């Protein structure tokens, strides 16, 4: 085989690879669009009026997740299953974002932490690496940390909207999350840096609870909080 024949063969492989990446990029763009739409729906809960119809918003978000599942299904067909890590830089960011959105919906619905398994179900992907297109732990955790920030914001806006019970429940939830993260031994990477931000969320929510407590606004709320949960 001459050098030139050899390089023609190599170019064939390179082209195939570039085509795959192009395909992946396209699907990822549609995923990003859907993710942004879900975000727009869920951000409505911060509006004063948004607290009434949380269920409806969750419902609507759930519908969008149908689209997400279709898009992710399409994504996983774009490349050989065992080359997940060859291409995952392309979808990593949007996947973390989708985990956050799934976690947010689940929290709004049940005030619990979405498990990794539950998150993968919502997204229609595998929970275990061996089975195919899956959700890495780091990506799951990253999405969960975004949820923590969002809940800190929600605690503030709940009070503005006159809902004094919610911050107390958020506080309990976030404390549990914080304890959970303290069990992890994170490397000095981007996840570690994001985790360092969690303590600001914890503090912010504690201050909201404090503001309510000192004004006695947590009194009946506590009863409610217990009851509602």
């Amino acid at each position, binding site marked *: 085989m001459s050098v030139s024949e050899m390089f023609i063969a190599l170019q064939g492989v390179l082209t195939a690879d570039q085509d795959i990446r192009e395909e992946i990029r396209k699907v990822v763009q549609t995923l*990003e669009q859907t993710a*942004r*739409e879900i*975000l*727009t729906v869920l*951000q409505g809960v*911060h*509006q004063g009026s948004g607290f009434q119809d949380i269920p409806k918003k969750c419902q609507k978000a759930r519908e969008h997740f149908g689209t997400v599942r279709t898009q992710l299904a399409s994504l996983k067909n774009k490349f050989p299953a065992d080359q997940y890590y060859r291409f995952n830089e392309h979808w990593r960011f949007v996947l973390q974002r989708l985990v956050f959105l799934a976690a947010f919906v689940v929290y709004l619905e049940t005030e619990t932490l979405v498990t990794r398994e539950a998150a993968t179900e919502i997204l229609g992907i595998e929970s275990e690496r061996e089975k195919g297109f899956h959700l890495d732990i780091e990506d799951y955790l990253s999405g969960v940390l975004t949820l923590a920030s969002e809940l800190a*914001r929600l605690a*503030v*806006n709940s*009070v*503005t909207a*006159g809902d004094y019970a919610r911050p107390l429940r958020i506080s309990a939830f976030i404390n549990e999350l914080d304890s959970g993260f303290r069990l992890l031994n994170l490397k000095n990477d981007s996840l570690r840096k994001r985790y360092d931000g969690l303590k600001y969320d914890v503090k912010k929510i504690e201050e*909201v609870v404090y*503001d*309510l407590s000192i*004004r006695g*606004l947590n009194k009946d709320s506590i009863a409610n909080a217990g009851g509602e949960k």
Partner: protein
Amino acid sequence: GHRREEKDSINPPSAMTMSFKAFQVELDTKHDKYERLVKLSRDITIESKRVIFLLHRITSAPNGEEILMESETKLDLVRQKIKQVAQELMGEDMYQFHRAISPGLQEYVEAVSFQYFIKTRSLVSIEEINRQLIFSEEDKDEEAKPSSDCHNKQHNTSSLKVTPVDYLLGVADLTGELMRMCINSVGNGDIDTPFELSQFLRQIYDGFSYIGNTGPYEVSKKLYTLKQSLAKVENACYTLKVRGSEIPKHMLADVFSSKTEIIDHEDGLS
């Protein structure tokens, strides 16, 4: 920089030399124009910033109308500068010089949209902004472009279009000013404005998150600051709500009027 056309060679210059001399003129002309535009852009930026400072004086001053009028006059002067830009760009592809003028235009969008918000409590559209940047030639200004090679144009109108990206970047910066206005309002005992502002800012924030990273990098880069401004406004509203919880709603008017008294009383002392 190009007045030694004939004197530097005894032999007749070759065709190649001739064309490079033409290139020299072409490049110098372009660079000179670029430089004039940079200077105009700096002027536009500075004057727009001063309009914004002026508008922030409204919350404290009782003469809002007067300040609004003054800001209008000042914005007209800025638009005169933009008109000079438009004249420079007449017949050009404005994107060729976009980097020179973009900073100024963004700051102008920020100033104009701030004024518009104060007047109407809504967001000025890019169409509205561009409508104001169509200039007729009747009000010919004399002092314009002293350094340019004054090619007397006899067109009827000139115009300039702010690009969507410049508009977005200007609006992104606007949110910083709105945040300042919000905190100022709280400090001045105005409890309605903060809630209005938080509604409005949330809409802009939602708008930017909807755009997300489909825009250019500069837009995505501003999202973080925007989010922080929103948080400051939301926190301010939160505080107003929480502290308002300690007295019945109907007492509020009383509380604030008495505060005003105190200030008036103290005013004579210093």
